[in-house]
């Protein structure tokens, strides 16, 4: 996986959490994952299709999501699934929006799909032909996880063309 495609998402997530929570954040860990993603809390999955393709998952525990929601509201928010969903969704939108802005200004064109929220116990499938990168971010409200699987479509086309020539 190309780091230049991953870096805008890491930078955006770091900036979104730091600016939203008005406190410094820290990237704790980066690791590669080749298996189906097992979410740790409430996950928002956003798909991207175009010059680059893949998906990004933002994953927060309900407790962390509630703390973030209360921080942003300026007072304690009553706990509910809807608040948790809304919080994770909006954070994911901000992370994707900020990273997409960077990639778009670099000349990449693609479509971003609305976030899908996953709260049940099933795993989230990764792309069949790419591994993903998992980033743990330490925030003042607890840990958040970003799982990114992204690749150039152009490269895949070239690979497919090369494969068809060999056949």
């Amino acid at each position, binding site marked *: 996986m190309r780091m230049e495609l991953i870096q805008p998402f890491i930078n955006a997530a770091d900036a979104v959490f730091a600016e939203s929570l008005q406190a410094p954040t820290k990237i704790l860990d980066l690791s590669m994952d080749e298996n189906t993603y097992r979410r740790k809390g409430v996950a928002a999955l956003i798909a991207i299709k175009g010059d680059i393709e893949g998906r990004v998952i933002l994953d927060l525990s309900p407790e962390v999501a509630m703390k973030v929601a209360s921080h*942003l*509201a*300026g007072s304690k928010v009553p706990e509910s699934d809807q608040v948790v969903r809304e919080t994770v969704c*909006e954070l994911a*939108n901000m992370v994707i*929006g*900020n990273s997409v*802005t960077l990639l778009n200004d670099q000349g990449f064109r693609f479509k971003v799909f609305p976030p899908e929220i996953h709260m049940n116990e099933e795993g989230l499938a990764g792309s069949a032909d790419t591994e993903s990168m998992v980033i743990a971010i330490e925030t003042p409200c607890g840990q958040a996880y970003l799982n990114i699987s992204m690749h150039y479509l152009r490269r895949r086309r070239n690979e497919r063309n090369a494969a068809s020539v060999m056949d």
Partner: protein
Amino acid sequence: MQQFAALLRKDNQPVRYLVVDDSVFARKNIIKMIEMFGGEVAGEAGDGLTAIAEFNRTKPDIVLMDITMPQMEGIEAVERIVRQHGDARIVMVSSVGYQENILAALQKGAKHFVQKPVKPEVLYEILRYVLSDDPNATGAPVAFAGEHRA
């Protein structure tokens, strides 16, 4: 929490805002800032179509408009509102801030753009700027320049 001098209309009444975003969470966040600026929420909408109806109903001083929304996106809603109300003051608020989006919104009649996550001090300065051109707004924003503090 940061403190801001109130942004007021010329008649010394609070500036009235229409907040348009499909995320309830995002609307709450913006409304919290409006209250910090001494403003009043005239209405809320979760999509462009409702925004147009709410604009006609409430006649707000300022609209804070998201871009990506169901039914009708923010840029189309801006175009329709400005076509009917040439003096409408609309500030786009979106996490997607690439050039094409900003230009499209400005070409359709939006006055400014702010990227999410919204920093209160950035939104405050933008509102001051947009209101300074508003015949209904006081010179207060200018008079209060530099008074907000962390």
